[in-house]
């Protein structure tokens, strides 16, 4: 078994270097935002982790589709690795959002559309992982998990468009095809957000890659256990 947590992994080094640069940009370089003051800097963590959680479900659904099509177990491994990292990013998205909401909206949580759909995404991840944990291993588990992964992806566009579809307390979309031109960040703030998003994307890829290798080892272990049981049975006969 190869060592999966390799500190000299180029992707880990790249992520760490970019994180150092991003922290410098967030805390030293970027000017304080006019309306919210220092607390606005939460944006540079909140939006990238939200992006990571959506990227996660996108990879889960893409891999699930590929598994249903090709029946290759590597796609199933990628889906479960992405779901596990996605639930970490999803949890962080909710926590950072709540902490940001408290000083800005004076509440920890409100039942508005964007927050509710984001919470649903988190539950989809949890449901996917719970299903995998409790259903017996095998082709049927992979097939059903792939279907859950595909259905879960429906929530992603709803989260993205929620702020525009149901005008509520959450700020409108600031990036992507549906971004509101008037709400677009200034160049300095936008550049830092872009750098932070890039950094978290690398962290996401590194974590998924690491988790994928462990999943591969778990599958190897199952195979070894089967071989061991077969050897014991042969010996008994």
């Amino acid at each position, binding site marked *: *078994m190869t060592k*999966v*947590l390799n500190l000299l992994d180029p992707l880990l080094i790249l992520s760490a270097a970019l994180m150092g640069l991003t922290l410098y940009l967030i805390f030293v370089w970027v000017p304080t935002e006019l309306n919210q003051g*220092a607390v606005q800097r939460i944006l540079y963590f909140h939006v990238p982790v939200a992006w990571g959680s959506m990227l996660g479900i996108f990879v889960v659904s893409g891999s699930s589709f590929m598994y249903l099509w090709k029946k290759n177990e590597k796609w199933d491994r990628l889906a479960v690795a992405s779901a596990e990292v996605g639930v*970490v990013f999803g949890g962080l998205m909710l926590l950072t959002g709540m902490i940001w909401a408290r000083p800005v909206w004076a509440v920890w949580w409100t039942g508005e559309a964007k927050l509710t759909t984001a919470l649903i995404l988190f539950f989809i991840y949890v449901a996917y992982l719970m299903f995998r944990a409790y259903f017996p291993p095998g082709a049927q588990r992979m097939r059903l998990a792939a279907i859950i992964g595909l259905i879960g992806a429906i929530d992603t566009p709803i989260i993205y468009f929620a702020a525009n579809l149901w005008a509520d307390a959450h700020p409108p979309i600031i990036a992507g095809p549906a971004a509101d031109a008037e709400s677009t960040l200034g160049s300095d703030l936008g550049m830092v957000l872009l750098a932070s998003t890039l950094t978290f994307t690398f962290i996401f890829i590194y974590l998924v890659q690491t988790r994928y290798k462990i999943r591969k080892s778990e599958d190897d*272990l199952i195979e*070894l256990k089967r*071989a061991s049981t077969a050897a014991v049975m042969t010996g008994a006969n």
Partner: protein
Amino acid sequence: MTVTRTITRAGALRIAFAMIVALSLSIVQTNVSSAQDASVLSGIVVGVETDENGNLTRFAVSDSSGEVTTFELSADTQYGLENQAGDRWVSNQGDEPSEAARRLRDHRERFAPITVSFENGTALSVVEREEGKLEANLGYLFAVFAITWALFFAYVLYVGSKQRVLQHEIAKLQDKLG
């Protein structure tokens, strides 16, 4: 063949990393110099000047040493000012010059401190003095970053422990199978 491919991939990653760092540093260097052009002054509003329509034309601020500075305005001058109840008003000189005058007079009457960022005597932004809220906000900011890193480290530790257990079990089974 595999070795050649691995070296090429590692080399490509190193080049990509070097390019990203170089690009980022050049962007930072360019922007830091431009961001530092503006100056900042905090103090109490001591004078508000308006035209015949009640639109703000100039205002004066007295800093902690008692020195009074007068600021000109442009249509792009931005405001982020709170009333006594804490409701924040956000606008700019081009859109609401008379409201800006009213707000600054309110600040003058209450002796509420403001922070002005300016360039060549023209105010770029006029906001509540940041020190007033900085401490309260920093707690939330710290909480976000602490929780994010704690969760990431917890996840990496979980992955690491899972790897150790797997390694142990695989080694045990491999020994058993000979």
